[in-house]
């Protein structure tokens, strides 16, 4: 899930200077779970904007704002309300915002900062475990990703800042390499410690990413 955090009202208000009317777009997936762009938040935003003296021409919660074609279809269905608005306020991750900007020339305002791809620990508590680096090392690191869990993304063991097994950047967080080390020890495997891990191939993370599923094998296709 994409973890998002709402931009502050002050920051948003500064963006509204030239706007008299807005159409609001939320997202029924990640943004709803993160409570930045679900029904409740879209309603609260509407109240806030009307309190500022702005007109809200309408609103919609898309099932998945990141689905480009479906987002376009919904905006076509609601074209009258959309047309009346000076701008569209999108309360979803940056991917969702760009599904919208992909299908309209209208000004799009992003209400959310996309933070990371996150796992849910429990409601409201999210943890980043994967950086989508395109070159997965988990098979050698006992299922714990150092690219993400190590503050420096090191691939060959802990840095000199590790202290009693904790991270130099956050002394309340266990060093990812200590976790990898103990887990491999339990599995009686050498894993990543048996060899020198080569420098990462960042060409696999070439931007912007494009990927097409191979229908027969599911394997990655050359881009």
């Amino acid at each position, binding site marked *: 899930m994409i973890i998002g955090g709402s931009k502050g009202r002050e920051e948003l208000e500064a963006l509204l200077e030239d706007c008299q009317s807005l159409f609001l777009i939320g997202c029924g997936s990640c943004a709803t779970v993160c409570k930045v762009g679900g029904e409740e938040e879209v309603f609260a935003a509407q109240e806030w904007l009307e309190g500022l003296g702005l007109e809200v021409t309408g609103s919609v919660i898309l099932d998945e704002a990141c689905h480009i074609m479906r987002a376009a279809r919904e905006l076509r269905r609601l074209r009258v309300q959309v047309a009346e608005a000076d701008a569209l306020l999108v309360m979803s991750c940056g991917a969702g915002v760009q599904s919208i900007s992909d299908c309209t020339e209208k000004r799009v305002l992003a209400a959310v900062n996309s933070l990371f791809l996150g796992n849910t620990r429990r409601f409201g508590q999210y943890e980043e475990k994967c950086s989508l680096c395109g070159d997965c090392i988990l098979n050698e690191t006992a299922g714990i990703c150092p690219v993400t869990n190590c*503050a*420096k*993304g*090191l*691939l*060959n*063991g*802990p*840095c*000199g*800042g*590790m*202290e*009693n*097994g904790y991270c*130099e*950047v956050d002394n309340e967080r266990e060093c990812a*390499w*200590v976790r990898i*080390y103990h887990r491999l020890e339990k599995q009686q495997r050498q894993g990543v*410690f048996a060899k*020198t*891990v*080569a*420098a*990462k191939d*960042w060409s696999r993370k070439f931007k912007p990413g494009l990927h097409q599923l191979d229908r027969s094998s599911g394997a990655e296709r050359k881009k």
Partner: protein
Amino acid sequence: MSRFAEKLSRQQFVLTAEIAPPKGVDVTLALEKAKRLEAVDAINITDNQGACMRMSPLALARLLIEHGYEPILQLTCRDRNRMALQSDLLGAAALGIENLLLLTGDHPRFGDHTASRPVFDLDSVQLLQVVDGLINGTDMAGKALSVSPHFFPGAAVAPATEPQQLVLKKFQKKIACGARFFQTQAVFQRSQLESFMLAADRFQVPVILGVLLLKNLRMAEFLNRNVPGVQVPEDLLKRLEEATDPLAEGVRIAREMVALGREFCQGVHLMTFGCEDLIPQILAE
């Protein structure tokens, strides 16, 4: 071969110290400090130490050479990607720099540019590998160099850090990737150094012990709070607290550490923070 490398290869005891490049363009103070470090064999030039932006160590290292001193150029992976690191390394070789200390680098979070993007395109092990490649005539892309550099690459290790087995694993990787000497983070306890050296000795790579002059209790507490990998133990904090002359006590502690260096290691790296005039006292047997 650099004088420093030669001395280590002859199994002689070496002394190193460090200078941080200035924040600004005037190197007068740095050169004055170098002058007060005439007793040492080589001087480490730190690379945006503590993630605080300063003059390029490459420039200061060259200036030291011009004034007759031998530098150890520190190079971290924090601020440069693999292309920048390699081109700086070739530049260093062209400027007559041979000794290298290759480091991961402190996280920008500690420094004065906390909003900067941490690079860490390579880690210290991979950087050692890259240097080895350059020495042998090829860059990271496998392309041949017209003339390959002479380097004497070293690395860092923190012997007092737990779990020690894990520290040793990375230590071994660094040796496998071409580390020819080690400089350690400051160590304050005999037991920690002893157990580390017991395991490290069989690799036959010279280890230079980091000795840090504790000037007073406040400094020791500051180090414990703010410097990654440095832990001053309770009994030393107590000694500093109870001493009538804390600096003299700090010199005594440093002298004890130098004695440990003579017993277990092949040199000491002195961190004296402006008290270079006390170096003869610290080295007195």
